[in-house]
């Protein structure tokens, strides 16, 4: 279970990206995070595994305060939380299997990774994961030779290698077309339902949120302005929508 308590994040530039945000994510949930561009979605997700250091507040992950963890504790926490990015963040020149295996680094003795060695079990697991995501034949292609959708699958495969209890996905489909978006989110949904992996996913389109999330939070200028169940989300009307997205926001055909 993940619990965020009074999280505040101020960038060195003075921008207050998150202000006193508190919420809970139960195990097995598919949590959608919505909000306008600049509302602090990426900042929130990156604070959870401390890719950026939060200014104030607590992040309790299964009873452990992430903000208090030292370097080795932090690495142990991070390897339980997979992360998927909008721009995939693959090492483009490396081949797919290496990218996938790099998700395993948190479990690999550092000295071994110097000579580029993973054990047999890891390599077999990598192939299995790729098979599960439907791209086993691409294992030895260079990452940048894949299409966008395939690259995002590699990104998910890398996260799966961590045996994650939770996956943080920062706009995983924002650079993909709608058909691919459904297929990628479908994969995440499968993982969520079959493997019980908690998913926390920021999304731009309300219809995607309504289709996949079991719970939703909304951010606006760094404040938590909405928190609701799947049913609440289905009932979001124009009034509520403007609450989250601001006065000027227009609802694009949901």
């Amino acid at each position, binding site marked *: 279970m993940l619990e965020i308590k009074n999280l505040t994040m101020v960038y060195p530039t003075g921008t207050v990206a998150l202000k006193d945000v508190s919420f809970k994510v139960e195990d097995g949930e598919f949590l959608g995070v919505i909000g306008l561009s600049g509302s602090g979605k990426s900042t929130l997700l990156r604070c959870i*595994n401390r*890719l950026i250091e939060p200014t104030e507040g607590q992040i309790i992950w299964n009873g452990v305060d992430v903000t208090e963890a030292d*370097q080795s504790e932090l*690495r*142990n*926490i*991070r*390897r339980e*939380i*997979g*992360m998927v*990015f909008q*721009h*995939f*963040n*693959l*090492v*483009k*020149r*490396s081949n797919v299997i*290496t990218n996938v295996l*790099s*998700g*395993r*680094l*948190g*479990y*690999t003795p*550092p000295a071994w*990774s*110097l000579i*580029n060695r993973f054990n047999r079990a890891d390599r077999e697991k990598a192939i299995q994961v790729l098979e599960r995501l439907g791209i086993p034949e691409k294992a030895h292609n260079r990452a940048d030779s894949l299409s966008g959708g395939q690259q995002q699958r590699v*990104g998910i495969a*890398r*996260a799966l*290698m*961590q045996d994650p209890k939770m996956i*943080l996905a920062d706009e995983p489909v924002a650079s993909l077309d709608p058909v691919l978006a459904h297929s990628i989110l479908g994969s995440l949904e499968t993982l969520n339902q079959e493997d019980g992996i908690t998913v926390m996913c920021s999304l731009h389109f309300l219809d995607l949120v309504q289709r996949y999330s079991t719970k939703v939070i909304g951010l606006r200028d760094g404040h938590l302005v909405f928190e609701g169940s799947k049913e609440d989300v289905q009932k979001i009307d124009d009034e509520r929508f403007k609450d989250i997205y601001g006065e000027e926001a227009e609802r694009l055909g949901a």
Partner: protein
Amino acid sequence: MTETTEIQRSSSPLHAILSLIIPGAGQVFAGQIVRGISILAATLILGFLSIWTSAQRARFPDMGVSARIFVIVLLQCLALLALLLIVRYLILRSMQDDASADAASRGILGVGYIAIILIASRPIMDLAGHTPGMLEIYETTLLLAAASLAGLWLWQSNDAALLGAGNPAGSWTPAILVGTLLILSLGWSITGIDISKAISEFSDTQVILRRIVWPWRTAFEYDIDTVESQARIQAPCPPGAIGPEVNEPLVGEAWISVTPTCGDMTVSDNTGTTLGTELTITGGGFEPGQVVEVLWKNPIGNPFTPRGVGETEITISPDGTFVSSLNIPLALVADTAEGAQLHTLVIRQESNEVFTGRLSDQMNLALVGILESIMIGLMATFFGIILAFPVSFLAARNLMMPIMSKTGGVVGGFVGLVPGIWAAIIGTQYVISLFGGLEQAPIIIAIIMVILFLGLGGLGWRLGAWIISQLIEALPVSIGRGVIGFSFAALAATPGYLLGLGFSRGILSIPLSVEVAAVNEQTYAIIGAVILGVAGAAFGYFSGNEGEVSIGALVYAVTRTILNIVRSIEPIIWALVAVIWVGLGPFAGTIALTLHTIAALGKLYSESIESIDPGPIEALQATGANRLQTIVYAVVPQILPPFISFTIYRWDINVRMSTIIGAVGGGGIGFILIQWIRLFQYDAVGLGVWLIAVTVALLDFVSSNIRARYV
């Protein structure tokens, strides 16, 4: 009439006059302060540069005189230019307003101005110096500089007039053109360009150029084929002596025969010379058309050319024979000699040089030299890569900046580093003694040493950081802050001391007596230590253990500074240092190039690290990978292509460099080349130059191929 507003813009005489008196003043007055100051600075700098240069180039350098002459010439130029401008204005006014006439008149004005100045250069200069011959002393440079400055002066005055009347700021182009002309004319003078000399004396280069361009005769060894034939003659000829037998002609072999074979030598005394017996020499079997040499050997066997007694060089007739005559020369015969004195007449033919196919000594030396050069370049590149690679990570801003540490940890780290390094030194000494001396196994010991320093230093750092952090947590807050403040003070005082010392020695030192200097040094050193110490204490106390220091930024700054300094010193200079360090030879050159390569590659590498995509790094951090793993999996694959490309580029440079680094004793072909140059052995120099050219061309070919394949 909108077209003509361009020409007849309104202008303000007041501003023009201000600028005429002090360049830039009108602009400042019109509110364009930066423009005005720039103009004043440019005028002053250009004026000073002109005076200084012409003073240096004059035969009797005197800044005062040069300045006076320059100013007078400048005034003359200003007057001339003003006159020309008035003439142009009057002509243009009488004509129809016409943009093309305006443009043309500008060109004519410029060319005419310079032409008049050049034509009237002698009177202008003589007028300025009040004596004839000034042009010879100060050269045309001064004149052209003054003429350009005059142009600049009037331009900025006009500029001020326009600005003063509220026009928008005009283009700098005219000023830049005139300024460039001025600087070019100064440059012409300073570099001593002399075109007539370059043309008239070009033929002098022929002698060496021909030998350098085509030196291949020197590359091989040639044998000289010599044919010799001899005849024996007895001299002096005592009564009754008949001399040796006359030689018979031979077939298929060179032969000579001489008659008679007995005679008297030429005698010289103060009454004159009495020629010896005339000998008739016939011969055959020689190379037709060639010249043979006549030699005389006395009874002891010493050969000499018998001069004044007949032909000493004979041309062989087409059938291979010759006939000649020679009087027996004066040859020393020992007083004590007894019996018949037998001399030898030698006819020697030196035929053409024979190609042997063997390389000459010089060619061998050149080949060894170029091989040595290539190897110097190769080794320097190799060591350069090995050392620049880790260093480049320390010099990459994007990797280092995020490395933050709690202040307590940093202090503890430094405190722990000291015993760590100390232990490493002791350990190294122990290892050396274990091996029985450094020279027993230098490479192994060096590797162990690096491991010891990194390992023990790192251990010390971690231990120190841990201990101090624990200590601070255990202590009350204010005492903890005190500890941190104190430690920072101690840490900062050391560089403060050194800086103070450097300051007193470097900037203030020279005129002080030894005693005073010693006292002063300490004073400054202590002042430095106190200043930085107090600053450190304050920083440490106020930031406390919660404060964070970017230890990465510190390492980055130090590494970058060192790299920049090392890189800005040319390899040739490093070679001078290395020659003193390890002696003449290729090792010195290797050290010099390695140092420079580390710095250059370190910078290039770290810049390519800085430009990588940060996404994968973030992604790998999120998987729980540690720093080392992140570098291996996210950074290295991204930087490999630029690294390969930069390395090849550097290898290229290193081989080129290694061919000249020998000139200062760094081994390789340059070392031999510089000796040949000093001995005027231009053929050999040519060999070296050719080998370098061939090597560089091959290298270009290879490196561009590799680059095309991998990058």
